């Protein structure tokens, strides 16, 4: 089965598929304007019992065609004559870091409930209604934990808004390190200079601009991340997909729940939400509390180390942040709600020149005391699709998972990147909706994988191709371009072939991937490296054999074990109009029923200060699920029941695991430092939205919070609280 129609398909077949796409878009429009709910669509029979859009010609592009018996797919995205590797890859746009005093109003521990007049285009708002200026749930439970101890030092203010030209692009490097891009020139919201500008309703990004944004942080320097929602007040003004309410997850920050981007703690246009990122090492309350270990530290501005409390083994490096709106994460992230977050530490300094016995000296640069980006490159990989007008398009009714047919890197179409003959670090993020990648260099050249999900590995791993990379997984690798000569080219290649959004159909060999024979348009070369010069100064970076050993958990007893099975055929036992959702996907907890998502339901409640072992099982053979657990990094104990099945690149800490068809993963995790409600879900965000997500919370025994925690129910007029809709029998 082809995911997309071939370019040589007949005009009649293309027209038929386009009509099907428009019909689906009309259903979406009816839904987004409130004329019909998803539940009603299911009741109408427009979805099958399994939750899949009715398989009928004229509605589903996957239905047998009137012009042929072979199921096909969507029309291919028009490229308007644009060729691959004809534009430079833009480096991320570094977000300004300002003093907290620049924020007006000043941030507060509890949500700022100052009232403002509401726009009547918001749903449920009558003339004269008022609501709080901050969308964070009010009161002490959702107050910033440790707000005084970890008072914010750096303020980063961003907006979420429709596409516009970027006139303040800051790549953090000079033009020669950005493939010749003139950052002072206006940067239009286009996937290529010769493709159309994206409509403001189609592309919703941080600050409304491209390239994607990079947040810079370091341990011991708390950040106040103020997120203004400037999306349209009218929920129907979404360009066909996406929701104007948002909740921003700092993936995978070790923060209190009020800063985690809980799926039910969303906020509305016209509001802001203050996220407080303390940037602490896990275990700071019990380990190295006197901050005497230089390996637990932060780079200071003088090139030295400012020691911090906590366990240096828990040091993290490569995060990202993205929307987590309940049932709309896939659409909002696809529309552009995704950025990356580099966290620097005494070990991972972002300065390869400092030789103090602590700094690992990974490829980066030397000009600044920390966070040098010349040789430390963020890559955001995502497959996209666009309509006949070149505008971003998405099929929200494919509950298997959505696949695009155009590869983008840093949100531009198949670019090139100029490199010097030396070592580079690449922080690779899979920011797709449903697509997995498997990356290699086109010549089979060697790389070191040094980090997995933002955690430097215990030991570097020498590879010629990476493992599959599921959605939200981050792989940090080092490539040494001194292997090549000036004017050489080498390409990054994707070998993971999909035929639908459920799982990878076939991991191709390099020869197969480069052959051009795959029906999947996102297989093959997607990023061209052009070796343009020798470095001006010698490469002093290093890739040590040993990076960050795992935390030793031998002395931490296991309080209990839980089993979560991820599969299809979920039911729903609750019916709260805000917190419940029904979809084909679901989760079984401790061998109970397969349940669809309800963020009012508590599925697990580990005790504060304990460690548990969780087994994540894939209940089916026809799909894969990249499962993400929020809050603190885990160690992988076993795959399919055996520690011997854990590959070298998964021997460190992780927060997303591909379960593989019919497979299982056993992990261990601690619940400490902070409290509140968190999530566990599939990061194939179509699966997550439909409805493979659960809530778990840290059981503090009722002090200082409540047991169980009340569920926030946001409205423009303010957030109310409800008791949990359900508490599973094995939760507490």
């Amino acid at each position: 089965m082809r995911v997309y129609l071939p370019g040589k398909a007949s005009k009649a077949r293309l027209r038929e598929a386009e009509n099907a796409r428009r019909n689906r878009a009309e259903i979406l429009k009816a839904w987004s304007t409130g004329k019909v709910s998803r539940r009603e669509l299911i009741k109408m029979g427009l979805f099958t019992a399994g939750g899949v859009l009715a398989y009928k010609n004229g509605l589903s592009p996957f239905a047998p065609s009137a012009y042929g018996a072979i199921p096909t797919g969507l029309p291919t995205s028009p490229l308007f004559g644009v060729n691959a590797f004809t534009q430079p890859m833009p480096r991320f746009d570094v977000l300004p870091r300002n003093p907290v005093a620049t924020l007006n109003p000043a941030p507060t521990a509890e949500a700022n409930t100052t009232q403002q007049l509401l726009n009547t285009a918001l749903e449920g708002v009558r003339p004269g209604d008022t609501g709080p200026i901050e969308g964070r749930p009010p009161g002490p439970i959702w107050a910033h934990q440790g707000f005084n101890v970890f008072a914010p030092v750096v303020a980063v203010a961003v907006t979420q808004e429709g596409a516009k030209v970027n006139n303040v692009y800051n790549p953090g490097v000079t033009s020669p390190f950005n493939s010749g891009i003139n950052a002072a020139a206006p940067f239009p919201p286009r996937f290529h200079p010769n493709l159309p500008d994206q409509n403001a309703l189609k592309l919703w990004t941080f600050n409304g601009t491209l390239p994607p944004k990079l947040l810079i942080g370091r341990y011991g320097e708390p950040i106040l991340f103020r997120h203004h929602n400037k999306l349209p007040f009218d929920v129907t003004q979404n360009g066909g997909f996406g929701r104007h309410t948002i909740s921003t997850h700092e993936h995978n920050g070790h923060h209190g729940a009020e800063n985690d981007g809980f799926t039910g703690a969303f906020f509305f246009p016209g509001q802001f939400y203050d996220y407080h990122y303390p940037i602490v090492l896990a275990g700071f309350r019990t380990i190295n509390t006197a901050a005497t270990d230089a390996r637990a530290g932060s780079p200071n501005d003088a090139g030295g180390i400012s020691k911090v409390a906590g366990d240096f083994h828990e040091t993290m490096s490569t995060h990202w942040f993205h929307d987590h709106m309940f049932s709309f994460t896939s659409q909002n992230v696809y529309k552009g709600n995704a950025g990356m977050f580099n966290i620097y530490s005494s070990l991972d300094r972002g300065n390869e020149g400092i030789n103090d016995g602590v700094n690992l000296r990974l490829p980066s640069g030397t000009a600044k005391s920390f966070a040098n980006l010349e040789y430390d490159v963020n890559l955001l990989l995502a497959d996209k699709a666009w309509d006949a007008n070149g505008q971003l398009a998405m099929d929200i009714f494919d509950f298997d998972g959505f696949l695009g047919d155009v590869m983008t890197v840093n949100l531009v179409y198949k670019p090139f990147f100029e490199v010097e003959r030396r070592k580079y670090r690449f922080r690779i993020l899979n920011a797709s909706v449903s697509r997995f990648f498997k990356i290699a260099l086109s010549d089979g050249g060697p790389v070191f994988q040094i980090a997995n999900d933002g955690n430097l590995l215990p030991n570097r791993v020498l590879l010629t191709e990476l493992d599959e990379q599921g959605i939200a997984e981050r792989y940090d690798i080092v490539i040494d371009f001194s292997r090549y000569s000036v004017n050489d080219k080498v390409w990054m290649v994707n070998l993971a072939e999909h035929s639908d959004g459920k799982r990878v159909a076939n991991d191709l060999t390099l020869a197969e991937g480069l052959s051009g024979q795959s029906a999947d348009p996102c297989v093959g070369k997607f990023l061209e490296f052009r070796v343009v010069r020798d470095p001006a100064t010698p490469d002093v970076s290093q890739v040590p054999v040993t990076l960050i050993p795992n935390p030793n958990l031998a002395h931490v007893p296991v309080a209990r074990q839980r089993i979560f099975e991820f599969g299809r055929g979920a039911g729903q036992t609750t019916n709260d109009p805000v917190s419940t959702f029904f979809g084909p996907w679901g989760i079984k907890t401790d061998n109970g029923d397969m349940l669809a998502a309800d963020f009012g339901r508590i599925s697990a409640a580990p005790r504060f200060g304990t460690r548990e072992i969780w087994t994540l099982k894939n209940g089916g053979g026809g799909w894969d699920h990249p499962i993400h657990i929020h809050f603190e990094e885990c160690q992988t104990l076993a795959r399919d029941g055996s520690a011997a099945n854990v590959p070298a690149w998964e021997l460190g800490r992780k927060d997303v695991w591909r379960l593989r068809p019919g497979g299982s993963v056993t992990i261990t995790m601690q619940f400490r430092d902070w409290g509140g409600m968190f999530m566990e879900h599939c990061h194939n965000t179509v699966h997550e939205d439909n409805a493979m997500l659960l809530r778990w919370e840290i059981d503090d025994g009722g002090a200082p919070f409540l047991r169980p925690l009340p569920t926030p129910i946001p409205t423009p007029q303010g957030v109310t609280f409800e008791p949990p809709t359900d508490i599973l029998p094995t939760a507490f």
Partner: protein
Amino acid sequence: MKTRRSLLSTLILLLLVAVGPVWGQTLAPAVPAPVVTKSTLVIVIQGTVNGPPESVPFSGKVQIKATAVTDPDFGGQPSVHLAIDFLDVQGLGATTRTKFFAVEEDELMRRLVASDRIDLVFTIVPDKGTVELATVRTGLASLTLTFDGAGNLTAGTGSITNNPFAPNL
């Protein structure tokens, strides 16, 4: 356009019809469980990587763990996950007599077929000294794997040659 009009009409009509309660306490039927078949095979592999600075004839073993999984829910084609690990594949440089290891660990999801050929690029690292990306050589391992009808990996062969994707490196 005919289809679109009829769809909208259907939507509106159905919206006006208040169907009885179908929500709440809804539990869907169980999805059939897949059949998972695990097998492990160790095969002999040998061959020579030629070219500068010297040719290296390799021999050793490759372990392949295969996990075949059916898809009874969707009726899709079975898949097989392969965990491939080189076990002590080594050789002596033809000129310097330096000992080298062929190193490769990879995991692949493949469509389950009776006979599958898999080519993998591997790295060549010296027995002593540091491994530098700048100088690591590569070779190509070609594996032919045979599966029975149940998805068991029953036989395999392997050979080593030059990496055709990087003839000068």
